[in-house]
């Protein structure tokens, strides 16, 4: 969690010559920091293709895509947050809040579902704004302000229906998660891919995106450079929460129901995906391509372990080991 430590320092010292003259293509996808994990992902896929009959089938790979949609969408927002050196622990709860608001507005208050989705996303964005303002105006550390928001949003999500789930959405809604257009692309997966593309474009090609790197690198330098650090910070938490809300809507499509317990501990998965993908928790370093790899590692791992019929207890151990290896490999490569 520290900006500069001696190990990092050493690493930086030693890599300049290799990173200095990167080939163009790798540069485009800015894999720096994620080649280790990428290798890990490839090895994992190769292993699973041999170990199970079903892993390397079109159908299963599409399943994996379905299963990572929520994580993938949220991880894009978390990437922005972590890039500026922040953290957002509230995403899992905000997801649940957005789901419940949507369910309530549509099925209890009886408004059209489209409107309900907009209201839900607005609530999600508002929670992000609150976290962001706590951080910028009141100097509350991001960890604490989003931890508080995590508790608050979960409480509110529960209060809406006194802890009950809501079912009974129109048929088309759930179908968005299941009908495969052109035989392969569900709407939910398409939404995730669009979010990936927007996130990637934003970070790479917009000046706002670039300034996030500056803020994460050194907020004082960024401020003196004329970047509106407070505004960008609030904006980033709003986007992260908005995407968590969108994750909630997508999850509602997948489950065809909404429940206040949804998204419990998702924040850890999301942060893990981002960090496995090479984005540094101290800010200023990383990107969306790495995050996608991180999301895929988690998705493939869970899917594969289930296909292999591994017991949940052993799964926990294996997941821990693989995560540590993927990140250690990256660090080792850098030596």
């Amino acid at each position, binding site marked *: 969690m520290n900006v500069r430590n001696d190990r990092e320092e050493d690493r930086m010292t030693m890599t300049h010559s290799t990173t200095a003259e990167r080939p163009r293509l790798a540069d485009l996808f800015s894999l720096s920091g994620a080649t280790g994990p990428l290798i890990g992902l490839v090895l994992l896929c190769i292993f699973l293709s041999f170990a199970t009959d079903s892993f390397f089938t079109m159908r299963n790979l599409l399943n994996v895509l379905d299963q990572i949609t929520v994580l993938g969408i949220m991880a894009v927002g978390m990437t922005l947050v972590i890039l500026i050196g922040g953290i957002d622990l509230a995403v899992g709860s905000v997801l649940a809040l957005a789901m419940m608001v949507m369910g309530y507005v549509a099925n209890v208050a009886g408004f059209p579902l489209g409107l309900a989705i907009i209201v839900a996303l607005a609530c999600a964005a508002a929670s992000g704004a609150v976290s962001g303002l706590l951080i910028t105006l009141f100097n509350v550390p991001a960890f604490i302000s989003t931890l508080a928001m995590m508790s608050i949003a979960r409480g509110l999500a529960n209060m809406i229906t006194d802890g009950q789930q809501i079912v009974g959405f129109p048929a088309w809604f759930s179908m968005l998660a299941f009908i495969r257009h052109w035989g392969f692309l569900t709407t939910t997966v398409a939404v995730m891919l669009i979010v990936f593309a927007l996130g990637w474009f934003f970070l790479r090609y917009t*000046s706002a995106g670039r300034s996030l790197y500056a803020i994460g*690198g050194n907020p004082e330098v960024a401020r003196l450079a004329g*970047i509106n650090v407070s505004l960008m910070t609030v904006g980033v938490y709003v986007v992260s929460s908005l995407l968590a809300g969108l994750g909630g809507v997508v999850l509602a499509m997948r489950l065809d129901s909404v429940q206040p317990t949804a998204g419990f501990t998702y924040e850890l998965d999301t942060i893990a995906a981002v960090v496995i993908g090479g984005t540094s928790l101290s800010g200023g370093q990383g990107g969306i391509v790495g995050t996608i790899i991180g999301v895929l590692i988690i998705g493939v791992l869970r899917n594969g372990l289930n296909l292999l019929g591994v017991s949940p207890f052993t799964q926990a151990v294996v997941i821990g080991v693989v995560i540590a290896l993927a990140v250690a490999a990256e660090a080792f490569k850098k030596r």
Partner: protein
Amino acid sequence: MTNAAAPILSLRNIRKSYGPIEVLHGIDLDVRPGEVVALLGENGAGKSTISKIISGTTPQSSGEMTWQGKPYAPSSPREAIDAGVGMIHQELMLLPHLTIAENVFVGRYPRRAGLVDRQAMNDQARSGLERLGLNISPARRVDGLSTANQQLVEIAKALTLNARLLILDEPTAALGGEETQKLFEQIARLKADGVGIIYISHRLEEIRKVADRIVVMRDGSKVEEFDSADIPVRQIVEAMVGRQLERMFPALPTPSDEPVLEVRNLTSARGDFEDINFTVRRGEILGIAGLVGAGRTELVRAIAGADPIASGTVLLKGRDITPKSPRDAIRNGIVLVPEDRKLQGLVLDHTIAENIGYANLTKVSTGGIVTTGKVNAFADNNIHRFGVKGRGPQKANELSGGNQQKVVIAKWLAREPSVVVLDEPTRGIDVGARSSIYDIIVGLAQEGVAVIVVSSDLEEVLGVSNRIMVMAAGRQSGILDHADANDVSVMELATA
């Protein structure tokens, strides 16, 4: 040889490579007890790298060292310290949240019965500070100390080490004349005790006062060794840069009458300065001089919107633009090259191109869209324009200090501002580069920019300013024209 004693430290054929790039090409060096060896050279010559090898901070790639007659290969700073080698680093290395005393004794706290003895720690730190003429409580936290005082704390840290060999890498970069004098007294005392000292500085006029021998480096090699410090500065400079240097300061620009920046009754929200009034005209260079702690940095930061203002106004071409944020100031064409490049100027682990880009996001984008190609081209252009020894994709922390400073300047001037404020622009910069920075400053003025230069280097303010405003204890004590300004008149006002 002025000193016949056996060397305490010898370096033989020391080489160092970072990746495929060799930055030290077989250095030999001897230091004897009780002598001060000045290590001189341009930015990036390898002075800090040698120091770091001796102090166990980084290992050499090849070559041997001998310490008090025995082979010496420290694998960590701890081993070097235990052997009796102390070093203060070029970049300030203080822990802002801890007290001065704890910073002085970090890693070697005085103990009684195995426990940290705070009383002893504070007492010893206080006496260390007093030897440097610094009268502040050692129980005070380091954050909030001025750069100069931080530098003194750093020196106190080195002085209390009881080292046999002390490496001082640009100890005076942030110091004023008085503090420097105090330091020299301490160095004399250490010499008398038989301590060997390696002294690195870009202030060549100091060298004559403090050094016994001079070693000059260029591009990673030792190019010349003088057995006495009584060498004309010109000769040293030529050894350093490998060519003749005609002059230090270019001819001053001729300002127009049109006022660009006006500061009226400006008072700091934090009480660092009060009631400041001055005008800078188009094409004029205004120097700001004063003793350390006079409030110069705070004043210019406020003008650039970086610090809050309690009252007063800043006018640009007659319009009130009193800035509320750096963003505000920049929008109006006022830019600040800050005092501390490490904390305020650069994102050290990002590339040079990125660093230049951050301050120029509007320039490298069209309709909010930025491309890496554009950022790189823009950066290359400015790297070239300001003579930075480095490439765009290199990380800022891989550059020598002086070249980092040039990157900071480049990053701001690329915006083509109408007012440029430079706070200690040549801190840690070699003579050659320094004169090229003066050329840049004068060039700016000639293009019609209003320039403010804050400097603790008297020769510099005198050499480069049309007028000099002198500050003392947060107040402006006078403004001198170039013709009336000299060491004496400025110092009189500074101590007023």
